[in-house]
């Protein structure tokens, strides 16, 4: 056990002032210290991407970032995607195209896809598949995720 550091995580526009050990991952801090359990942990070694969140506009594997590294940065998680009852186009597209089954990897895929499309709205199909290959899904076989993200990309470009 080591000394706890006082940090502030800004998650979906709300500030959480918490004390964490320097070794605490951002994923654990989001889930356990801030109670936002929509971000899931699948491998803790940066392969599966279930814990993907958006930090200062970039998709990040929150299991590979320490919470102290995110101090003061703007973090977005799946809980912040919808505006009230209005789903984000990416969430709607995942429902419409059956882009999820058990739902465990889904928050990570949503944040990955939203983060990338916000940065690169006109991403090519080939690059999109490259990007989506960063995360693992064991249920869907990916085809419906790809369809959903393409459909959401269209919606987001309109929007």
């Amino acid at each position, binding site marked *: 056990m080591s000394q706890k550091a006082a940090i502030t995580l800004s998650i979906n526009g709300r500030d959480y002032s918490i004390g964490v050990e320097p070794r605490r991952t951002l994923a654990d801090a989001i889930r356990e210290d801030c109670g936002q359990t929509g971000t899931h942990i*699948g491998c803790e070694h940066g392969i599966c991407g279930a814990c993907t969140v958006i930090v200062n506009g970039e998709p990040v594997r929150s299991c590979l970032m320490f919470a102290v590294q995110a101090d003061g940065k703007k973090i977005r998680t799946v*809980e912040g995607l919808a505006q009230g009852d209005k789903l984000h186009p990416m969430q709607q597209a995942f429902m419409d195209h059956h882009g999820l089954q058990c739902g*465990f990897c889904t928050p990570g895929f949503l944040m990955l896809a939203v983060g990338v499309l916000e940065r690169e709205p006109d991403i090519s199909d080939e690059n999109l598949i*490259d990007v989506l290959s960063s995360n693992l899904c064991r249920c869907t076989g990916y085809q419906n995720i790809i369809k959903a993200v393409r459909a959401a990309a269209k919606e987001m470009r309109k929007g």
Partner: protein
Amino acid sequence: MTWVGRAIRRLEDPALITGQGRFTADAAAVHWVRFVRSPVAAGKLRSIGSPDGAIVVTAADLKGVKKITPMLHKFNYKPVGQPVLADGTVRFIGEPVAAVVAASEEEAEDIVDRVELSIDEMASVADARAALDASAPQVHTEAAGNVILEGKVKTPDFDAAWNNAYRIVKVDARSRRQNATPMEPRGGHATYDVATGRVTLTCTTQMPHLTRTAICDVLGIPESDLRVIAPDVGGGFGQKMSLASEYVVLVWLARKLKSSVAWTEDRRENLIAGFHSRDQYITLEGAFDRNAKLLALRTDIVSNVGAYSCFPTTCGVEPLMAMAEMPGPYDVQQYQCLARGVMTNTCTMAPYRGVSRPVITFALERLMDKAARAFSLDPIAIRRRNLIDRFPYKSAMGLEYDEATYKETLEMAVKAIDVPAFRKRQAEARAKGRHLGIGFATFSERTGYGSPAFAARGMEITPGWETVIITVDPSGFVEARIGSSPHGQGLRTTLAQIIADEIGVTPEMIKVVHGDTDRAPYGWGTFASRSLVISGGATLIAAQKIRTKLIKMASQLLEAAADDIVLADGTAKVVGTDKAIAITKLAREAYTQTHRFKGEIEPGLTETGHYDPPGTFSNACHVAIVDVDVETGHVKIEKFLVAEDAGRIINPMIADGQVHGGIAQGIGNALFEEIIYDDNGGILTATLADYLPPTAHEIPPIELHHIETPSVNSITRAKGLGEGGTIGAPAAIINAVNDALSPLGVEIDEMPATPQRIRAAIRNAEKAA
């Protein structure tokens, strides 16, 4: 308008896409548990040294806790017990030896690193064939020669058929070991209620009731003292249907500490100790007549079952399913099989989506392609000559196949993929040094089977039936409580569709409740492509009873003949009149106005359905087109096409999703995924950088074609389809790889066909030439 047959959106999704799903690891606990695991494959445990002040629970503390001892009453099965924490002997790397309890997960993990294990390491064996050698170390004294069970069968006229054969074709098939790899690893959270003395265990299980039964048996406590909840479960694929000994420890600890304790498995634990599967050697020989018609099959199945026998299926699940279903979709009445379960110092084997059938289909389909070559036939022609085409068909093992479309799906796939066009393209590519190949796999998928099928295996526990209780409450909303325990299959939606059609309300008014032993009736859970058939059947039975009662009530209140009443659009209507009453009103009156039914109708609106069907066979033909880079051994799947028949489809979107997901796992099986042990039982694949489930890059678009042959063995007419994707895909892909490499004289009968294996095969062929 009916709801069944429509691709309605899933009722499960709104919570899951907004981060509001409730998974086991989401709940906080007072105490956190980490397990000390064996660092060696075999040894005598001399001592466990705990750091001062730490809570470290070992087998010595668990007095009175029984071993987990699943039972089979056939096939010379040797009961082998697994202590929930290793008791004196360790048998595989990753076996739980002690539980450390601390105030946080990190602290518990720090203590685990400081626990000192003194183990006298012994010789170990990891490979099943090596374990059969007379000089091999014995994993359990109870299982002499490491054989824990032996299934044998030989049909009476086998020898005559064999001796009359024109040609014998043989394949030595090897399937390497896999891990089902659900994205959510296992985990449990047990909390003690001081007032009642009850423990609630929330865990990532596919079978909550049986988990309760098993833990209470092992701990010797009444089942009323334990509630098991399967909340949202992040994929299971079979891995979460076997009892985790860790859960027993959690319940024991919650009772001991009178508090809450939680354990979240990490990925390394899951990969080394979260159950494995598919580690088999199959030698298969087919005896063919002059016309390439199969006369007899002979097979030797060696299944590596690991260090213990899984509960509830026992480790017989792989070898015995292979034995029972080996003849697959082919018409062959003479059959000889020896199927052995062999114990090794490796992680325990448990069912994984498809259970053995990906391996037997791989062996059979390789056999068919080899036979086609031997007879100078094409792979389609030999299948045409041998596929079953009369129903009901009784297999050599006595299984009754209901009507299916083995030949029709083959023809459908052949037409859709346009074989002549491919062969032309293949020839052109070959001229330019590119190696394209096409591979077929036709298979049967036994689904939705009831208790007799499990009894035939001699299982002490015979899952099979399901119960569903439907209540229309005074608000008019509907609740269906089910014993199945879906975890991604969309059953809340499909069962609601079945109910909606029967009682005339919309699916949104129907909530399906599952995964809580306090709320749901006893049931077996979700596995073996059973839930839609069996739980769906029980749902239909209960819904029909609700329908009958609603009609009876409406007939009294509307003073009309029951036959004249229809339930639709939320209303009971008298046909041809404007007389009608809302179903919500009928529901209300069933509770609040019972005097109006003159004592002829029982109060309330709850009905129960039970269903225990004989089982029904789905079928499909998978076709893969691959492009093999002979320089690197890399396989690119250009196209994957499926023609499948799973009976009546309740929700096409969900059905297609199951097929897609299964195929993705099958592609992993065929090309990438392999748990590797070294000769000392050391496991080399303990991260997802070493064990490789496919990503979006590796999965091609999948083209699906459907036939719907309603099943007479299923009252909803639906067949199961959860496993088919995993069953057919590996065989189709490896047949395609073989087709691609055929000009080089290469044959690959091992999966996964990794780049290294493909390169080695090419090098060997070059040397031989």
